[in-house]
Each structure stands twice: as structure tokens, then as C-alpha cells.
């Protein structure tokens, strides 16, 4: 088994809800990410799935150090990245980069493509000497499948898929080891999604990248991921290899998610075991006691309200945070 490049331990991010203008008082905490642990291995893709508001994007922001964590640790190559300052932090920036969700807002409309992709070199001049930058930018454009001649164009002159390629080129400029992809294809047309996904796959092979791939679309994640983690209300409920999660899901939430994926086979119609969840996701401001999924779970018992199920191996060789974890063929 490959070595872990990123080890996340008990990561917590709470956003305080304050009231008052001058004398602020905290009236509550939004528990966006509440005790998440996982390892990212070298060269692998870890897919993170979950519905809107489950804390996926907050997780990405914290991993990028765009938001400080409330508690917890993340070791990048064995060093705690939340304690890094100054030169160490600059080195970390070179090693972890992000591809953002919306290609229409993630590129500065007043900068040319050359300036956008060249900016990493300006911030980290040690990566590329001044004279070679234009050449490097052209190479990057070529790598992501854009015409290097378009270096002087502005973002609004490109389509959504092309803009996302520019965003990928920017993330790639510093030759990072880890790229956090925060729903990189969810804003794109389905036909273009596949192209961008394939590009990400090719780049992974070429540069030996590790991805944390965040998405809400299970089929998108399956296409790219080696391992998949399922999040619900700020917690990870199940984590395992792509096969374990998709073929042998043990957590009721994962099973419900998978049963909602449409199957392109009309003969299966009506014969599938569709799980319909009732109710809405509870507010992260005031999550349910014990197991957070219990309010929507058909298996819920008294123990679910009192005891938080640990994310541990119970059945099927992979961890699942359910007291009553059991395999259930969904598809």
C-alpha cells in the first residue's frame, strides 16, 4: 500500500453564529465539518460525496487553509499543515492546489489567460525564472488541451469547459503533489464533464498527482476515484474503495444515495430496490444527537439517539459509521 501524503485527523470546522453589531455574542455554531479523519495516499484519488450542505466545500477550504480549522490536524508529508507559517506555508501552497467549482467566477475577468496562469510564478518566483515564464504558460495551456496562441485572451472569450481547463492549468503551474478538486465539473455540461474528467485522469498519470475529488454526483466520483468517502452533515459515514462503496455499501445513507442513481437499463425498471428517504437534512446548527442520520433512517433504534456510531470496520472490510451496518445490494 502506498504511503499517505495527507493525513487528516479529527478535523472540525464550526462557524459561529453571532448576533449584535458592536457587542457580538455567539448564539450558536454551524457544525460544517465535525470530526473528519481520512488518509490520502500518494497518487490516489479520494472521492468525497454527499448532498449539498454536508460540509464538502468547507472541508476543501480548510484543507487549502483558506479557513482556519476549529480543531484537529492535517499532516502533509508528516508535518502539521495548520501550524505552518512563513516559508513553510509558502512551500505548502506549492504542494497543495485547488480547482474551484465555478469556472465563471474563478478566473479574474480583467486578467488575460497568460496573466492568470502566470500568476503562480509571480507569487513563487523561485519556481520559474522570469524569462521562461511565458514559455511555461504556453506549455501549461498545451498540457490542458488549449491553444497556446490564446495566451493573450480574456476569460470571457472562452467556454465553460475551456475556462475550467484554464483553472486546472493555474492549479498545475506550481507542480503540486495534491490537488483539491471542489466540484470541478458540476457547473459544466455533461458532454464537457467527461472531457474535463479525462483530462484530470491523464494529468494524474502524467504528474503523479493525488486528488481529493469533491462532488455530489456519485457516477462522476466513481469514474475517477480509487477510494470514496461519503459525508453526511459534517461527518464521514462510510469510507472504502470504489468497489466496496458501490458494490457493498453498508451504511444506510450510502445505500439510499446509490439507490437514487438512475440505471440506464429499462428492464430494471420497477425491479430495483429504491430507497426513498423522508424528511430534509437537519440543520447543522442543531444536529441530532447520537447518529446524525437517525432522523431519516429506517433502521433507527434507541441506541442511535444516545450513542454516536464510530467510523469503524463492522462488516464488509471497510469502515462504516452505523450501529447496524450491513451489506445490502442496491443496484
Amino acid at each position, binding site marked *: 500500500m502506498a504511503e499517505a501524503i495527507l493525513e487528516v485527523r479529527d478535523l472540525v470546522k464550526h462557524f459561529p453564529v453571532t448576533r449584535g453589531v458592536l457587542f457580538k455574542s455567539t448564539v450558536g455554531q454551524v457544525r460544517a465539518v465535525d470530526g473528519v479523519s481520512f488518509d490520502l495516499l500518494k497518487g490516489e484519488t479520494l472521492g468525497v460525496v454527499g448532498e449539498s450542505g454536508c460540509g464538502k466545500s468547507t472541508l476543501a477550504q480548510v484543507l487549502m487553509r*483558506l479557513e482556519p480549522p476549529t480543531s484537529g490536524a492535517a499532516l502533509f508529508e508528516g508535518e502539521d499543515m495548520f501550524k505552518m507559517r512563513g516559508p513553510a506555508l509558502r512551500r505548502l501552497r506549492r504542494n497543495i492546489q485547488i480547482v474551484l*467549482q465555478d469556472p465563471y467566477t474563478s478566473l479574474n*475577468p*480583467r486578467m488575460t489567460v497568460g496573466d492568470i496562469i502566470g500568476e*503562480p510564478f509571480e*507569487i513563487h518566483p523561485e519556481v520559474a525564472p522570469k524569462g521562461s515564464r511565458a514559455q511555461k504558460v504556453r506549455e501549461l495551456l498545451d498540457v490542458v488541451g488549449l491553444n497556446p496562441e490564446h495566451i493573450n485572451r480574456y476569460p470571457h472569450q472562452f467556454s465553460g469547459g475551456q475556462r475550467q481547463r484554464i483553472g486546472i492549468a493555474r492549479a498545475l503551474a506550481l507542480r503540486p503533489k495534491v490537488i483539491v478538486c471542489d466540484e470541478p465539473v458540476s457547473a459544466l455540461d455533461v*458532454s464537457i464533464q467527461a472531457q474535463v474528467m479525462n483530462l484530470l485522469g491523464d494529468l494524474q498519470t502524467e504528474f503523479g498527482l493525488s486528488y481529493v475529488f469533491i462532488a455530489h454526483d456519485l457516477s462522476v466520483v466513481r469514474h475517477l476515484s480509487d477510494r470514496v468517502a461519503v459525508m453526511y452533515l459534517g461527518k464521514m459515514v462510510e469510507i472504502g474503495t470504489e468497489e466496496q462503496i458501490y458494490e457493498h455499501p453498508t451504511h444506510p445513507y450510502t445505500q439510499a444515495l446509490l439507490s437514487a442513481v438512475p440505471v440506464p437499463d429499462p428492464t430494471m425498471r420497477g425491479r430495483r430496490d429504491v430507497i426513498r428517504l423522508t424528511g430534509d437534512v437537519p440543520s447543522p446548527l442543531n444536529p441530532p444527537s447520537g447518529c446524525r442520520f437517525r432522523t431519516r433512517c429506517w433502521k433507527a433504534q434507541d441506541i442511535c439517539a444516545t450513542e454516536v456510531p464510530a467510523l469503524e470496520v463492522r462488516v464488509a472490510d471497510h469502515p462504516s459509521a452505523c450501529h447496524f451496518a450491513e451489506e445490502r445490494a442496491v443496484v
Partner: protein
Amino acid sequence: MSDPTSATSEAVAEAGGGATLGKPRGLMGDAWRELRVRPLFWISIAIITLVLLIAIFPGLFAHADPNLGMLSRSRKPPSGEAWFGYDQQGYDVYARAIYGTRASLLVGLLATIGVVILGSVLGILSGFYGGWLDAVLSRVSDIFVGIPFVLGAIVILTSLNTAGQGGAVRIISLVVLSIAALSWPVAMRIMRSAAITAKQQDYVKAARALGASPTRIIVRHMLPNCLAPVLVYSTIALGAFIGAEATLSYLGVGLRNPVVSWGVMINDAKDYIRVAPHALLFPSAFLTVTVLAFVMLGDAVREALDPKLR
């Protein structure tokens, strides 16, 4: 989309009518394309150019001496000799209106520059850093907004700009400073809200993820994207400040002799409106047309820069 090259050329051809194929254009370029087909824009530009020329070379437009007062020709109506007639003191109204352009425009321009610089710097810092800095700056701006403009200017100018003291430079700079001091909160609020919006944009997040310094984020990413609304405000404000100068001069606390401005002329003529209306009418017309030109320009620029109005 299978061939990125052709898709892009199409996009460019669509926007640029094929003529500018491959030539890069920024948002300012787009705004320019939008502006140059608007008659309103060209009318205002023509008026502003003329007014600027008058301000820079008044001698080209008027040959009479604006400071030669002869009581023998007091309140004479317009004639072939003096197109706009003479005022109470026997000054040539046309010559004074021409020579007064410079002071009026100078006050407007300098006050606008002061307001834009002060307001933008405070606004962008306030919007970017937020927290206590924003709280303090916003409250300070609230205090300045709370002071009625005319009252505030009268208080400042009556205490500092006492009659018979100082030359033209001192009088003009006092008026400019008092207008700027009382008007910067508007520019600051515009900039602050633009900065708050820009700060949450993903490209700022991406720059932070790259490790960009706050200075770089402000200068490279936020300023270029926040400037448009302030620029629009400044063109409208320029007209308003020329009018403000006239108001203050009319009230007798703004510019005064030896400085000639439209406001000074209106002030001089106000008591003789029934016997010599021409002395009031012509400087007022200059003032109105100039203010209108700047407001029209501001309107045209705002529409061109706002993609939602296209």
C-alpha cells in the same frame, strides 16, 4: 466544443464582428465598443472637450479683460460689443464666464480626485479586511454622512476662509478640501460594497490558495474589478461638485474675488436679477450645461460598464 480552437474563434467572431479576430479585448474594450455608438456619449464628450479647452486657453475664446470693471457700462444688456452684456460692476459677462471656467472646473476636478482617492483607499481596505477596521471606518463615514453638506461646508469655510485673507490658491484649495472632506463617504461606501462582493469571488480564493499577499490581492484582483462603479460615480460627482462650488460661492463662503468662477458670478448677479437678468443667466447656463454633460457622461459610462444593462 470538441475542437476548442474553433469554438473560441466563433466566440470572438460573435463578439467582435469578425474584424478583431484573435485580437484580445478586455472589459474596458467592450465598454468602449458599447460607448462609441451612443450619441449621448459623443454629445457629452463634445461639451466636456469644449469646456476643457476654454478652461485651459480662455484667451482664445475671449479677448476682453475679465477683471476690467467700468461703472459707466454697468448692467448694459447684451450687444455686439459684449455678447453677454455687462454686470453691476461693469465687468464683461462673456469674458468672465470664459475665464471663470477654469476655477469652476478646477474645483470640480480636484474635489473629485480627492473624493475618489480617499474614498477608494478607505473603502477597499474596509471591505477587504472587515472586522474592527471596517467597523471603525464605517462609523466614521456615517458621521460624515450625517453632516448636512451645505451646513458643514459653511462651518468649515467661515472658520477657515475669512475674507481678505490669502490668494487664489488658498481659497481654491480650502473649497476643494471642504467639498472632499464632506463627500468622501459616498465613494467609500461604493468601493466598500464592491470590495466585499469581489472578496468573495472565487478568483480571490484561488489567489489566496496560491499564497498571494494581501497587497497583491487588493491591487491585482480587487481594485480592477471594483473601480468601475467608483469611476461612474466620479463622473456624476464631478458635475455635482462644480454645482457645489457655485452653491458655496453663491452663499458667499466659497470662491471669491480675485478668483472668478461661475458661482462667484451668480453670487454677484443675484441681487440684480430684475434689472440685469443676463448677468445671472449666462453663467448659470454655462454651469447647467457643464454639469449636465458630466452627468450624461456618467450615465453612458455606467450603462456601458454594467453588463446587465446591455
